[in-house]
């Protein structure tokens, strides 16, 4: 056996020029950490301390720190995680900054949570000098090892990032599994599902790690193998009950397939394990609403709002959800109060004004205040007509419902047709549209409208791609431009347009205008349907064209 005596701590990390921020609400703890850092060689005038999240944010805005030591639990206001989220969100820290979260015990939230909002490391108390020094050194090394990969990801050069992962895997044993995880995420993001499946299965034969199961499940979902994916997620939950990502993905999948009952029970169980997630509470609220459990929804939205008070995850959506839940609970006063609060807490852009008006409209409609409904209907039409802003599908449907109720059926039908054109193959949407027509006693007329609109849309959508395959490049571009004009909110049309332009460039050469047009289409598509793998692939193809030129 190749054994040796353990080394003493290496002291390769030069602390002398480093600017360090210590965030802790305990004065004693701040002093302890300050002393340790001074002993490590940090210049005491380069050590800053903050006793609260807000104080930390203020310092982060003024100074670029190399190291941040932040306690996870802070007495008042933001907690450590929320400070980190805001710092990343507002770019208050550079990519090179080491963020260490210090906590007294491992928490569920620390283990789960989004990777982009994770600190570089968690350190459990108690902390000794030697222990902090070696930890920092190790994290420093790891950060350096991953720097090139993360840089490539930031520049959207995914193929390069994957190649860099492979290079690192050969030399860097210490981070084998983290590199494998990163690589499978990148492959997933670029839509290489077969490779993801192969890689995940290989990882799983070596070690039964829950994240590999979740990644594999994600790839299977993309390949429409829903049952296999769900079984895998259930198996991951069985062996690692506290791996929250598996719960969340399972709930998401069930939800996407309309299985809201089961999604609700999965989320309820997950909340029992890890109740402090702003997003999970909100998703629980959304799901509860879908199955008519408005009281549960109200509770979940309230919790989400309370948790999100100081968080970057604070969204108007949770308030809107709460208002809708209150409407469903016939608690109209609370609904209006929530809307008031929302209008106070958020700057009300037109898109949001539309949503608040809509909820007020629904409340008045339910209270039978016809005149007010009429007024709101008119205001809504005004906003829709003047502003070219993108209407979210659900809102559009609810506005149509309200307009049908207040007698403006022309505008309502226009909205519903546009929704069908944007998503002609979405069964759930078509079902809702049918239900809206039925509610307005327009079932038969509605049915015909839905059918013709849907057929028309499918035809236009695929015309460009068809023409390209026949070699009619100019006609294809013209067809796609007409299609995006007719259906500006159809992500598939926009992606098809980019596809057609790229094919055109490959055949006829690059022009700056065409590149710009393809970029715009891709950006718009990504806004409508974020994270579509086709989007990543087309971006890569476009990138190759521009660098080759």
């Amino acid at each position: 056996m190749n054994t040796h005596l353990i080394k003493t701590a290496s002291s390769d990390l030069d602390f002398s020029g480093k600017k360090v921020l210590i965030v802790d609400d305990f004065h004693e703890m701040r002093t302890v950490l300050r002393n340790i850092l001074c002993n490590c060689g940090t210049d005491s005038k380069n050590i800053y301390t903050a006793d609260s999240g807000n104080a930390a944010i203020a310092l982060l805005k003024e100074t670029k720190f190399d190291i941040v030591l932040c306690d996870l639990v802070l007495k008042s206001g933001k907690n450590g995680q929320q400070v980190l989220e805001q710092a990343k969100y507002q770019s208050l820290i550079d990519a090179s900054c080491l963020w260490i979260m210090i906590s007294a015990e491992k928490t569920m939230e620390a283990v789960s949570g989004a990777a982009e909002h994770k600190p570089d490391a968690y350190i459990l108390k108690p902390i000794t000098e030697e222990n902090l020094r070696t930890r920092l050194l190790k994290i420093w090394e790891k950060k350096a090892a991953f720097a090139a990969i993360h840089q490539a990801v930031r520049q959207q050069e995914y193929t390069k990032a994957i190649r860099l992962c492979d290079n690192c895997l050969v030399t860097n044993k210490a981070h084998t599994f983290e590199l494998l995880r990163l690589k499978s995420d990148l492959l997933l993001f670029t839509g290489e599902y077969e490779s993801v499946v192969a890689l995940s299965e290989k990882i799983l034969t070596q070690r039964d790690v829950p994240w590999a199961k979740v990644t594999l499940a994600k790839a299977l979902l993309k390949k429409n193998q829903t049952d296999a994916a769900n079984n895998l997620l259930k198996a991951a939950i069985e062996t690692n009950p506290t791996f929250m990502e598996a719960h969340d993905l399972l709930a998401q999948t069930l939800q996407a397939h309309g299985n809201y009952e089961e999604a609700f029970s999965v989320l309820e169980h997950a909340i029992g394990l890890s109740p402090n997630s702003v997003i999970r509470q909100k998703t629980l609220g959304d799901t509860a609403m879908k199955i008519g459990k408005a009281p549960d929804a109200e509770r979940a939205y309230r919790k989400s709002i309370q948790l999100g008070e100081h968080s970057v995850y604070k969204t108007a959506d949770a308030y809107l959800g709460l208002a809708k839940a209150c409407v469903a609970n016939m608690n109209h006063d609370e609904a209006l109060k929530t809307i008031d609060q929302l209008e106070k807490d958020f700057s009300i852009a037109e898109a949001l004004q539309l949503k608040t008006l809509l909820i007020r409209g629904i409340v008045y409609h339910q209270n039978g205040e016809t005149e007010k409904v009429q007024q709101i209907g008119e205001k809504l039409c005004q906003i829709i007509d003047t502003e070219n802003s993108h209407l979210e599908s659900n809102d559009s449907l609810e506005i149509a419902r309200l307009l049908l109720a207040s007698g403006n059926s022309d505008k309502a039908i226009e909205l519903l047709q546009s929704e069908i054109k944007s998503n002609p193959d979405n069964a759930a949407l078509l079902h809702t549209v049918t239900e809206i027509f039925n509610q307005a006693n327009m079932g038969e007329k509605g049915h015909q409208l839905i059918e013709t609109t849907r057929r028309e849309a499918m035809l236009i959508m695929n015309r460009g791609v068809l023409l390209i395959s026949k070699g009619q490049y100019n006609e294809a571009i013209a067809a796609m431009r007409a299609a995006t004009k007719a259906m500006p909110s159809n992500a598939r049309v926009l992606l098809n347009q980019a596809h057609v332009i790229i094919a055109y460039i490959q055949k006829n050469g690059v022009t700056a205008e065409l590149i710009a047009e393809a970029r715009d289409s891709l950006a718009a598509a990504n806004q409508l349907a974020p994270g579509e793998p086709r989007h990543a692939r087309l971006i890569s193809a476009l990138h190759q064209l521009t660098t080759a030129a």
Partner: protein
Amino acid sequence: MDHFLVSSVHDMKNSITLLLTGMEKTLTSIEAAGLSTTDLLQVHHQAKRIHNHLIQLLAAYKLDQALYPFDPQYICVEDFLHDLITHHTLSLKTNKISLSIRVMDRLYWHFDEALIYGIINNAIMNALRFTRDRIAINAEIVDEKLVFRIEDNGSGYSQPSAFLHNDLPHGLSFQTGNTGLGIFFAAMAARLHQHRGCTGEFELNNYSALGGACFTLRLP
């Protein structure tokens, strides 16, 4: 009641963390002044035991309630052990105990760092208490399992026992002064570690190369 127990234990643990840090600072200055630290060291050791117990109490509660965020990572065993013993440098030095650590070269393994830290730390605390003057820590791969051995040259365990294949300890008595918390915690923590049908297990025996107790933990 559960809530009060848990939150009080939490609070006590935080206080003791600060107490320990303060004591360590004082110890260093007493030592620097050339005075005897023997008395304070014993107090320090006891405080550390309480601290350790409280941490395990909390972890055992969470494990028992299936609330523990089990999170195995791919860990460099040498760094892990090195990190762990930095907390005992003081006791080792002042009690003139020699410690040797042998780790297989480039040894990495999957385990939950905090849980295994708890188990090994407990074994080291015991060794520190009962050894004459030597402790040896050994980590290697045997039969596709990571095996930790903590040995000393004290008088050995009075009741050697093995906790294998998902055993949970039973028959512990409050009268003997052994609450069994350490063993209970170790059993709960070890059995969460599973791979290919194998489960983590540990053993307390007196087959130490140093002549005293030997604690062995095997992780699949």
